[in-house]
């Protein structure tokens, strides 16, 4: 098989190029580790200043956050300007006044959430007390009624359900699932896509600019065998890379993985195949490595936005349209469904089919482009 000869050569070349191997195998792990650390570094610990708060509220708030007491509202404000507290709360006429710092979105959201939770608990407890005193009142009234009329009325009570707290449970995962767990599947897909695209694109470009592609086309080699050869050759490294990334994310970073390992690998390898074919294709439209790099902000970066990391439910129609035509959408969707929701082959096969379609489409386009350099 001619394509095997090409594949062997591609493998021999990559093996001799230590930098490329390093880039392919180590770089994605490094970037993922960095992101894991950075996402984990944002703590949701907030400090809340309190002014003139009833003791019961203070106690409840202390369970949620660090609390600092200030004598006046102005003192609290000063501390906030110095960024010592994220929010302050004061009580006037039974009404809570909350001031939020406003400069750090995630801390502010967390502070508001915590204060609101405290106030809810407070309200619930208060209503609980009120219901109880109401119930006591009812009992007293009934006793008086019995004394006046001499008859024993039927017992009534205010239903308890009013005062019950709610409980939350999760269909998939649990409350421990953090941001990185949610992003990891899409990130994995993106990094596999990005690095495979870059490396296959650059090496095919080198083949083109050094004249070896033309020289190879002067042999009896068929055009399809060249593209296929590149596919087979790079696939060996892609398999190693994908397994490494997958092992790293699931076993070392401990990202929630509820799905089948093999199906996850299948999705990842298909993602890599799309990137491989796209890299080869776009290298044909670049005259230099620099021109190939220029495709990255145009073709690769926007795909992050469509990779399921961001909620696009409210996006305009044209965004939804782009979302439907870029390959990473289908890859990320499948990866997320497998990892977080534990979906199996039966659930995600339409996505796999779309990815296979992309591979075949790009492959045929590659053959068409090569026709310029070898008419038959």
């Amino acid at each position: 098989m001619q394509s095997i000869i090409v594949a062997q050569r591609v493998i021999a070349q990559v093996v001799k190029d230590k930098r490329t191997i390093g880039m392919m195998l180590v770089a994605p792990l490094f970037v993922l580790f960095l992101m894991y650390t950075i996402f984990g570094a944002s703590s949701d610990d907030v400090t809340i200043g309190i002014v003139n708060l009833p003791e019961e509220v203070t106690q409840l708030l202390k369970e949620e956050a660090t609390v600092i007491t200030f004598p006046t509202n102005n003192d609290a404000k000063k501390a906030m300007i110095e960024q010592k507290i994220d929010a302050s709360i004061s009580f006037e006429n039974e009404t809570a006044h909350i001031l939020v710092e406003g400069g750090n979105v995630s801390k502010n959201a967390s502070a508001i959430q915590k204060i609101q939770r405290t106030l809810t608990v407070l309200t619930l407890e208060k209503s609980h007390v009120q219901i109880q005193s109401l119930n006591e009142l009812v009992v007293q009234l009934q006793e008086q009624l019995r004394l006046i009329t001499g008859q024993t009325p039927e017992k009534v009570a205010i239903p308890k359900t009013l005062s019950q707290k709610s409980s939350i449970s999760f269909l998939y995962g649990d409350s421990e699932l953090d941001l990185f767990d949610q992003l990891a599947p899409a990130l994995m897909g993106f990094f596999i896509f990005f690095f495979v695209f870059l490396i296959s694109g650059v090496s095919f470009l080198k083949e083109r600019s050094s004249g070896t592609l033309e020289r190879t086309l002067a042999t009896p080699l068929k055009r399809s065998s060249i593209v296929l050869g590149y596919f087979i050759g790079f696939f060996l490294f892609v398999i190693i890379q994908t397994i490494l990334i997958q092992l790293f994310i699931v076993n070392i970073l401990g990202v929630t993985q509820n799905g089948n390992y093999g199906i996850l690998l299948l999705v990842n390898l298909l993602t890599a195949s799309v990137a491989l074919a796209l890299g080869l294709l776009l290298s044909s439209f670049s005259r230099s490595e620099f021109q190939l790099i220029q495709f990255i902000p145009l073709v690769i970066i926007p795909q992050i936005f469509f990779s399921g990391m961001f909620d696009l439910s409210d996006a305009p129609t044209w965004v939804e349209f782009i979302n439907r035509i870029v390959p990473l959408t289908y890859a990320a969707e499948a990866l997320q469904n497998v990892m977080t929701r534990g979906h199996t082959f039966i659930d995600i096969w339409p996505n796999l089919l779309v990815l296979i379609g992309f591979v075949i489409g790009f492959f045929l386009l590659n053959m068409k482009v090569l026709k310029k350099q070898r008419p038959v």
Partner: protein
Amino acid sequence: MIVSVQNYHQSFGKRSILTNLNFQIQKGEIVGLIGPSGSGKTTLIKTLIGLQRPTQGEVHVLGHQQPTLKVSKEIGYMAQSDALYEDLSARGNLAYFGKLYGLRKDILKNRVNFVLAFVDLLKDADRPVRYFSGGMKRRLSLAISLVHQPPFLLLDEPTVGIDPTLKQLFWKEFESLRENGVTLLITTHIMDEAERCDRLLLIQNGQLVVSGTPDMLKQKFGSIENAFLKKEEV
């Protein structure tokens, strides 16, 4: 007949490069392709290999109309600029192209060693091509064109950047290949190389202006160099 070119035109976009070329090459000839820089020599060679489709006319090589993959195996090609895999060794490059030309494993090893010895690269056979000098790369390119023992060789300026001793050796080899029935088409800008050809094709302004033996050109114009210069002035 090895090559038959009839009414061949080549243009790129609106630019016409070669117009109405007609010539033939017989078995066992060394044909020199000469002409000023940019006259279309490389363009003609690429069409003969089948790397591009003639805009007009017919180009037959070894009985097949180009472009076709059927004759690729019968042609040895040395491009004007070296097309080598820099990460691979000389041996790696030769083995790769040898395999693409369909050489069997046992034959391949012998052929690779034979052509390496011929171009005097045995000592450096296992070094990456990245470390080669210009002349060494040129020699390796020639070795690649010979590895599958093709009956027809297309050599685009094969002796550029090679020292005189090796150049003599190359031409001796070309002549001995000719004795074995191999046909060669060689482009050159060097007059004493042109003199060693059996026949010369002179291309100017996109046209084949002279086709004849070096002696014929000398008789007509005084010297080959004159033929080259005179025609350009006209």
